[in-house]
């Protein structure tokens, strides 16, 4: 049985729908990702799962319980880490762990938990003095302290440096391996691809796709990326007419084509016909990033804020 069931979820703010008919279910023991551009409705969706918001329509069930109606029961089996939430500035790590332990009927022992999360050196440090990574590790500890069956992690690694992010990923995998289901909200493609067993791509309040990371890439219309620097310019029309080409763009003299294996063959034929040499020809599998852009169909401005800016900028600038 699914541990989280979301059916037909709708939630509007001031008449503007933030979540507009979302369905998904999370199986026990998996890392389930919710991926989407900023403002797509990811956080609103998980806030309904956490019981922090009352849905306008649809049903949400956590282990068969209603997060609003059965709020107390749900809080005992669901641990949450919220986007942009803090603790009292002068509260020490030890005090926070002790305090939150007192909130739950059957808390786990916080000492081994702090050890596992590398917080034992920081027990006497006040919250305000912790680094970003340490704060997030403390929030992971607090979300696990009640011995939950599910944890919801919302934008956990945003603002962390690459090392801290990778350390956090390892922790999330350990959480899953300990039998706790993880619902992970993120806008980092790499994170979703690396961690998630399944991903729901949410765009404009709806589920645009739901699959495994490799499934999402495979179903994208542009699963192969071809890039090269032509020795002589090639005609735009001929490039645009390539079979199965989802997009053609140029980047500093390099031509970047998103397409399929069929496109690759056509490109080679085209080059041979014009006797054009392709310097630094690269044919690569698309990443989740490419699949994401393909699925969410936003203009570049929106995706640039949604994904890692440098990666978004590395995408073809023109879409044909």
């Amino acid at each position, binding site marked *: 049985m699914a541990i989280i069931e979301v059916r037909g979820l709708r939630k509007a703010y001031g008449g503007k729908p933030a979540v507009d008919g979302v369905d998904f279910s999370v199986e026990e023991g998996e890392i389930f990702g919710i991926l989407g551009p900023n403002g797509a409705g990811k956080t609103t969706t998980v806030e309904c799962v*956490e*019981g*922090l918001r009352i849905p306008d329509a649809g049903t949400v069930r956590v282990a068969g319980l209603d997060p609003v109606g059965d709020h*107390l029961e749900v*809080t*005992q089996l*669901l*641990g*949450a880490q*919220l986007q*942009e*939430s*803090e*603790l*009292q500035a*002068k*509260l020490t790590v030890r*005090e926070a762990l*002790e*305090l*939150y332990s*007192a*909130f*739950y*009927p059957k808390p786990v022992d916080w000492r081994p938990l702090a050890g596992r999360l590398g917080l034992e050196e920081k027990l006497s440090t006040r919250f305000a003095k912790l680094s970003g990574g340490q704060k997030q590790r403390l929030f992971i500890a*607090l979300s696990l302290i*009640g011995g939950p069956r599910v944890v919801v992690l919302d934008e956990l690694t945003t603002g962390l440096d690459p090392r801290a992010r990778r350390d956090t990923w390892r922790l999330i995998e350990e959480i899953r391996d300990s039998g706790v289901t993880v619902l992970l909200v993120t806008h980092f493609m790499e994170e979703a691809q690396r961690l998630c067993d399944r991903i729901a791509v949410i765009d404009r309040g709806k589920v645009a796709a739901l699959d495994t990371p490799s499934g999402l890439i495979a179903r994208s219309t542009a699963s192969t990326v071809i890039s090269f620097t032509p020795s002589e310019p090639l005609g735009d029309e001929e490039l645009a007419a390539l079979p199965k080409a989802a997009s053609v763009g140029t980047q500093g003299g390099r031509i970047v084509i998103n397409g399929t294996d069929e496109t690759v063959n056509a490109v080679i034929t085209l080059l041979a016909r014009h006797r054009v040499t392709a310097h630094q020809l690269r044919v690569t599998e698309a990443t989740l990033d490419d699949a994401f852009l393909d699925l969410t169909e936003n203009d570049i401005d929106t995706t640039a804020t949604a994904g890692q800016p440098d990666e978004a900028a590395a995408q073809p600038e023109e879409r044909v």
Partner: protein
Amino acid sequence: MASASAAVLKTEARLMTREPGVLFWIIAFPTLLMVILGLIPGFDDADPDLGGRRVIDLYVPVAALLAVIMAGLQAMPPILIGYRERGILRRMSTTPVRPATLLTSQIILLGGGAFASAALVIAVGRIAFGVELPGNVVGYLLALVLATAGALAMGGLVCAIAPTQRAGQAIGSALFFPSMFTAGVWLPVQTMPDLLRDIVGYSPMGASSEALDAAMRGGWPHWVDLAVMALWAALLTAGAARWFRWE
């Protein structure tokens, strides 16, 4: 969840001890102000215009009210708005403990702090300046409870309507100075001209000042003053509860 509430109260108490500013303004400042005023030549002399009482006698209840105002309008809004702004209340909503527990703890601690400060004022007034202890202890306590309820409810209303910590401080200050004036910090209410005194008597702190003064002199606070205080406390509490946002 009695143990959880106790844990929250204990933690908040511990955090308050780490805020020397809050402790100074609530606990130390009212007594300090009274001592400074008591050292002004003449404030220690019996004044026939005051029915043979001294100015310092009038300032003991004023200083007690000052502690109440500090707790409600200076200390409470930044703490609670900060808890809301920084998502601490929301974080708590995802646990089995209601975030209201945090508010209750703060009310208990700030109210308790104001009472401790009032006790310190009375003790120092007695020891340093020979100010008589309240003649009607029950009446005095009742007036102090109602005054504290009014000031904390006023602070609660500020927390409810101020969108940010900065706005809370601005609104808090806008209420802070009139509250100090009506409490009699610049001019004890009992020495105000009649018309002004009548008007001030309908403000929460003005009525509190009259009620405390009556109890100091050994009588019962006038029921009108108590009614004014209770009404203010009820209205302000209702407003705070009506408009308070958890996020």
